[in-house]
């Protein structure tokens, strides 16, 4: 009698080698960082930070990410399911990047060159994700389609924002505000028939520039570009000058201003106003600045929501020019000489044109 007995022992299936797969759940773009985090059992946020750092320092993060997106399967997907076309695209892209790297000398340079594309990729996917309320599909093609759609949406929003800025600055703010309210009402109505998330982005794209224009008090009425004004006589001197966007140079040095006050209003929507005055003229000035500054001879200042007041009295019978500036975004300068300098001297508040308001009494 055979005493040996056979026992069938059911062994658990071998787990096999650990496999790197893109995550279908923990993903922002294609699940590469989520998959790496799972593979190494670390927080995927740390992996994302490392990828961003690598993308900034040499561009390797961008190359590795794109390669992994195209070559690594998503979790649960059999390797055979990957189409040969995806692999061909991946191989072609990697070869192209390598050639570009060699041609441009170093990967560091390529990294900087690729940085805008990397940012556009992330921003475009984020915009698409926000607008749709969904995350892009797992396949590289789905990701690329979403990137392109997100990019298109981004371009449309930028165009809307620019249009809103100019429309608001040119006096159409009421209409733009009405459009924001209409978009909001449309969203409320759409909420009961499935929602319309995408409408939020264009609505914000027109609302935020309008808010900026309103807060800064930008008035673009008055023309664009460069304008030079040089009245030859007192009769030709107007009491108000304005520029919508650009620069106005108001040269009053040919004028023989009589004693007394001469009011002068200067309005700048966005840009620069330079007022050149004769040395025998005392300048008193006040200004309302949305964002920017004022420099009157050796005195200057600036900021946001900022008011300038420099009330000076003339010595003897010197004429006084009373400047009243309204600056939406930019700079108002008053000087005796034009030294070619343009723009604020914020780097050193004590450094200025070096000129003095010498026709005014010393006390303010």
């Amino acid at each position, binding site marked *: 009698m055979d005493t040996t007995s056979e026992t069938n022992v059911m062994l658990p299936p071998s787990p096999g080698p650990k496999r790197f797969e893109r995550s279908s759940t923990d993903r922002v773009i294609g699940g590469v960082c989520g998959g790496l985090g799972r593979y190494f059992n670390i927080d995927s946020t740390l992996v994302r930070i490392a990828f961003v750092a690598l993308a900034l320092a040499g561009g390797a993060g961008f190359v590795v990410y794109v390669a992994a997106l195209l070559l690594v399967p998503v979790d649960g997907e059999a390797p055979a399911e990957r189409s040969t076309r995806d692999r061909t695209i991946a191989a072609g892209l990697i070869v192209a990047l390598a050639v570009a790297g060699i041609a441009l000398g170093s990967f560091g340079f390529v990294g900087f060159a690729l940085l805008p594309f990397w940012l556009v990729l992330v921003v475009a996917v984020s915009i698409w994700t926000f607008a749709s309320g969904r995350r892009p599909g797992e396949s590289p093609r789905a990701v690329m389609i979403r990137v392109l759609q997100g990019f298109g949406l981004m371009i449309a929003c930028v165009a809307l924002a620019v249009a809103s800025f100019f429309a608001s600055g040119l006096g159409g703010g009421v209409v733009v505000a009405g459009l924001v*309210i209409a978009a909001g009402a449309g969203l*409320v109505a759409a909420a009961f028939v499935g929602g319309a998330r995408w409408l939020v982005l264009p609505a914000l794209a027109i609302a935020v520039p309008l808010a900026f224009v*309103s807060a800064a008090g930008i008035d673009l009425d008055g023309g664009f570009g460069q304008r030079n004004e040089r009245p030859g006589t007192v009769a030709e001197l107007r009491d108000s000058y304005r520029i919508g966007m650009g620069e106005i140079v108001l040269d009053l040095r040919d004028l023989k201003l009589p004693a007394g006050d001469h009011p002068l209003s200067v309005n700048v929507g966005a840009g620069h106003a330079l007022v050149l005055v004769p040395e025998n003229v005392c300048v008193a000035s006040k200004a309302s600045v949305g964002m920017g500054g004022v420099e009157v001879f050796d005195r200057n200042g600036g900021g946001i929501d900022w008011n300038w007041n420099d009330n000076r009295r003339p010595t003897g019978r010197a004429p006084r020019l009373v400047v009243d500036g309204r600056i939406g975004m930019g700079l108002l300068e008053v000087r005796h000489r034009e030294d070619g300098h343009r723009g604020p001297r914020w780097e050193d508040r004590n450094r200025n044109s070096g000129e003095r308001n010498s026709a005014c009494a010393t006390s303010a």
Partner: protein
Amino acid sequence: MRRRTVRPDPFSLTAGLVLVAFGTVLLLDRLGELDLRFHVMAPIAFAAVGAILLASGLSRRG
């Protein structure tokens, strides 16, 4: 007969209401009823954008 109640999309509803409120503030400013400078307008704009982002995040969780 049972009436079907339609549950509104919380994100669209919240974002829509925020935009209506923000647009009304902007409209009043442009009509001269309010005079909002940066120190008031910036917090309002950030609050509006923040509320929309918050609604987006919460609706995605839900």
